């Protein structure tokens, strides 16, 4: 019994040390972002607290513009996905029709093959459509979401048939059944998918980089990458850390507040 208690304390201490190791890059970054630039890199800041790095970065990089762009991309993508996936999820969960198997094949294709593997043909398609260097180009490939359809279908399937029949008896049409009966029952699935969709598009880099050129269409990640690789930023880790902090702050806060929701959503998306 005593041996087990000692083991327990030992393991707890060990797990806390590992946690601190995991936190080092974040703590270091925040420390640097709020201290005066120096040429000696130390783990804990040695100069006094300052907001100068943020002032400099906010002026040097059009972050307000990038924020607005990222928010537009993230929100528009999610709202349209919400709409298209609800309709498709309902059809697959509730209705009987010819060719259902084919639809599932298409869904599995998208679950297996990420957009990143299809950058060349998708770029060529968007060039033909003449939308390169617009926010629309960032959004278009993601508007039909296999993952969202799949999550919603699972949820819709568990909605009791009695609810559906009661609505039908009341004279509701399909449209009303979808939005008044099924959709409200799937709040956890929407929540789950919202976390995945928003963090994916907030973090996505390669695709927005490929399809945008003008600063007026760049997202936060592309803006940060350009700044971090620019000549002014070389050796200026205080500024880059401040810029990084600006970009990750909203997601980090959301994660700290809703850690369980985040973890569940990420895992749900992985399991499919």
């Amino acid at each position, binding site marked *: 019994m005593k041996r087990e208690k000692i083991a327990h304390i030992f*393991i707890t201490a060990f*797990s*806390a040390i590992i*946690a601190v190791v*995991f*936190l080092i*890059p974040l703590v*270091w970054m925040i420390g640097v972002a709020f201290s005066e630039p120096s040429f*000696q*890199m130390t*783990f804990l800041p040695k100069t006094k607290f300052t907001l100068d790095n943020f002032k400099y970065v906010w002026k040097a990089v059009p972050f307000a513009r990038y924020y607005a762009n990222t928010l537009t991309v993230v929100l528009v993508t999610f709202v349209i996905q919400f*709409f*298209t996936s609800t*309709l*498709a999820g309902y*059809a*697959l969960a509730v*209705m009987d029709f010819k060719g259902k198997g084919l*639809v599932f094949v*298409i*869904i599995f*294709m*998208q679950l*297996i*093959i*990420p957009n990143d*593997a*299809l*950058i*060349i*043909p*998708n770029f060529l*398609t968007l060039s033909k459509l003449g939308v390169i260097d617009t926010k629309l180009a960032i959004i*278009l*490939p*993601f*508007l*039909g*979401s*296999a993952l969202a*359809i799949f999550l919603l279908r699972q949820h819709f399937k568990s909605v009791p048939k009695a609810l559906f029949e009661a609505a039908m008896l009341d004279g509701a049409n*399909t449209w009303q059944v979808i939005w008044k009966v099924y959709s409200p029952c799937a709040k956890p699935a929407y929540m789950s998918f919202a976390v995945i969709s928003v*963090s994916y598009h907030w*973090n996505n880099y*390669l695709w927005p980089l490929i399809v945008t050129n003008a600063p007026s269409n760049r997202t936060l*990640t592309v803006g*940060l990458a350009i700044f971090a690789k620019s000549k002014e930023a070389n050796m200026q880790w205080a500024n*880059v*850390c401040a810029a990084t902090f600006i970009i990750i702050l909203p*997601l*980090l806060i959301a*994660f700290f507040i809703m*850690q369980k929701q*985040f*973890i569940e959503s*990420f*895992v749900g998306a*992985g*399991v*499919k």
Partner: protein
Amino acid sequence: MSNRKKSSLGRSIKNNIKAWALLAPSLIFMLGFTVYPIFKTFYLSLTKYKMGMKAPEFTGFDNFIKLAQTPLFWKVIGNTAFWALLTAIPSMIVGLGLAILINRKTKLLSFLRVSYFYPVVLPMIAVASIWSFIYMANNGLVDQTLIKLGLEPLLALSKKDTVLPALAGMYVWKEAGYLMVFFLSGLQAISPEVMEAAKIDGSRGLHLFRHITFPLLGPTFLFVSSVEFTNCFKLVDHVMIMTEGAPNNASTLLLYYIYQQGFTNFNYGTSSALSVIMLVTLLIVSIPRFFRQDKKVHYN
């Protein structure tokens, strides 16, 4: 009788139209940006197609033959295979370790979970920006620490033998928390009766882990390795920020090579041939996931 049959046939046709109408908004985008580009990649891989050309020219397997004769291609394949092993296996080991650490009753649980998982949420671009200073030659956090300890600086990102392991170290830090959650649900799915019985039989600690826990985690391992081998191919943001393939292409990974061929050299044919290799690889590594369709993992 025939009237009723007719009306039910009519209803069925109406039903079919309705279902496809509901699917149409999603399907248009999925066909246009997933199905069509998959076929187009295969087609373009058999053509000569560069920017400025009016249309692709069919050349059979020329792109693949040319690639096979290019030393850089084999280097990239080698790098990518090495990268997969360097990231997937350590991520799984660390992920399992973290899962064991939080699968206990402790007051620190919430703190531990947040600390282990938060890197998953961060954009790779942000992570790479921070870590490029951590790994920076001479002035970086790692090298400064080594110099203070009286050791040689590592210059991790500028040497061909250390660049991929260094990037992999960062990747494991970012990914382990994600895999941890799958292992945690695997651990929690093992029935307490089995563990009790093993303990009554005198199995403890490492012995218990090796002979009971580890074998029972088999399906979780299969699933997680599939997830991880898929993930490690489809991200190159860190290469673009930290090394751009340097030194001497020692850190050029497949997707980065695809990007370079397509968007630096504007050689869409070659780039598509490389994409075909990536598509086939993704297809193969995702097979194990389908064996788990019926068994849902739930995190509590």
